[in-house]
């Protein structure tokens, strides 16, 4: 049996008459990466804020490593690290001072503070910027400081609320390298919300939330199997034979002379087709279904909306 890092049962949060989160349940296994996707205003941040004890639930049960977020706030706070959507650094202090303050708050043993800060800054490639005031750094660097701070006390669970929003693609890729490196090294659980579908691809489990409700919850590949299609574009000289074969196998396709676009469901289909028509294939192109398609299929809108 695997341990649950996060357990949420029938969680509801209302602001006055507005229901931000409507009776959701899910859990996250220890050591896994979990992505929480949804359009703006779907209830992602509300869920994160409640899980990290700065907002009270209206109803339901939420537990972090078995500790209740309403009644055992201190135990919960000790176990988590958070990178918020917005900056929560003290701009007037230096990078080092920000991290040191964090170590004091989380009671990192004094003799380990220097070592931990060095480790965290190394992880995000900012060791040379230790003495720089945070306000003098670029947006991407601030984000990296924030990530370093989120992990400097070695949390068991790391919450990342759109950690890479507003970063350029290169920085975004780097930040993810750092996060995954750390996740493997320290075996921490990651709870992520994001706008970027490619970020969700690397997660073990994905939950899609819309209008305060969880509308899908599965592994990325299973979600794609259910909601997205893989297409194979193929050009063959034996067009009629090909069409006959595809129809026999009940696969849908579009034909244009010798070119076909076939919707395939399993990789076996692809292998069989290609081996049968091997000598007649002139061109082939396979497009895998994406989580973006899944998202649109489920919520009816682009995540960027």
């Amino acid at each position, binding site marked *: 049996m695997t341990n649950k890092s996060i357990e949420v049962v029938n969680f509801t949060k209302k*602001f006055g008459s*507005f229901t*931000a989160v409507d009776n959701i349940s899910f859990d996250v296994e220890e050591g896994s990466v979990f992505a929480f996707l949804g359009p*703006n*205003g779907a*209830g*992602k*941040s*509300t869920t994160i*804020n409640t899980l*990290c*004890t*700065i*907002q*009270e639930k209206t109803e339901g049960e939420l537990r972090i490593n078995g500790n209740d977020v309403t009644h055992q*706030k*201190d135990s919960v*706070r*000790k176990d*988590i690290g*958070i990178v*918020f959507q*917005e*900056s*929560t*650094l*003290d*701009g*007037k*202090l230096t990078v080092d*001072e920000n991290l040191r*303050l*964090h170590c*004091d*708050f*989380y*009671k990192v043993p004094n003799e380990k503070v220097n070592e931990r800060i060095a480790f965290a800054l190394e992880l995000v490639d900012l060791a040379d910027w230790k003495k720089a005031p945070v306000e003098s750094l670029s947006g991407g660097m601030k984000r990296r400081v924030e990530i370093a*701070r989120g992990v400097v006390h070695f949390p068991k669970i790391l919450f990342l609320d759109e950690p890479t929003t507003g970063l350029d693609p290169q920085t975004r890729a780097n930040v993810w390298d750092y996060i995954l490196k750390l996740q493997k090294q320290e075996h921490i659980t990651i709870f992520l919300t994001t706008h970027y579908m490619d970020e969700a691809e690397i997660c073990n489990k994905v939950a899609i939330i819309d209008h305060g409700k969880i509308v899908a919850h599965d592994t990325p590949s299973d979600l794609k199997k259910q909601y997205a299609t893989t297409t194979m574009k193929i050009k063959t000289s034996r067009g009629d034979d090909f069409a006959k074969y595809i129809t026999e196998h009940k696969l849908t396709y579009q034909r244009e002379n010798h070119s076909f676009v076939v919707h395939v469901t399993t990789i076996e289909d692809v292998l069989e087709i290609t081996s049968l028509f091997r000598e007649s294939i002139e061109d082939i192109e396979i497009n895998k279904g994406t989580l973006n398609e899944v998202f649109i299929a489920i919520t009816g809108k682009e995540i960027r909306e």
Partner: protein
Amino acid sequence: MRPIKAIIMRNLMKFVRDRMRLFFTLLMSGLFLFIFSFATKSIGINLAHPMNYLISGIIIMTVFQTSLNNSMSILEDISSGFMKEILVAPIARWQIATGQVVSSMIISTLQGLIIIVVGIFIGLDVDFIHGILMIALMCLVGLTFSSLGLYLASITKESANYQLLVTLLVLPLTFLSGAYIPTMALPKMVAPIVYLNPLTYTTSAFRYVSLHMENQSTAELIASGVAFNINGFIMTPAIGVVLIMAMGAVFFTLCVKKFSDADFSRVKVFKRGRR
């Protein structure tokens, strides 16, 4: 203890780096000293040392105003997002409040000390015992009004509102406390407000100590506006100190309660469209 110490050190560090703030408080105090030294002379009340009388009032008002202004920093922390970092940390809420209040007290007392040093050059007589008592009183005033400030800041939640509230409070209360204009010189009409004003007792207690009035009779104390005869009840500086202590205790408790409220950070969440 470590988180409290960390919060205090951070706030002190920020204060030291923000030299403009220190400069303007001192400039204000200097200006008040300059303006009201003329006023005190022209009012024509018989005071043994009018300058000392005035400067002791200015010292304690500096402590009071600095305490209230310091609480602005938590509003800055809320809007910069840093308050979230503090609120999600495993720190007991009373420790957060204590760290904020104590750091504000230290800053206010330090500013008061600077004016005392200026006062010594003008002729304020400070010996060891009285010096210690003055510091103790400044700390008490700092604690009480930092708690008040923090509480007001936590309920107004926006720095524009807070500034308005503070101006609204500070102006009448300081002018009706006897700090700049002796209470004896104020019109009889405002006497009820003077007696209800906690700053009246803050000022009188501090004057009592800094002007070495412990050998004077009650009548003499009343004549110099340090004790008050309120319909036959003699309000001595000692009672004043107890009052300020009680007030401090009340507001500090309210602050802790406010910080324990988990939805304290909601201000921000709401502004961003209730995500």
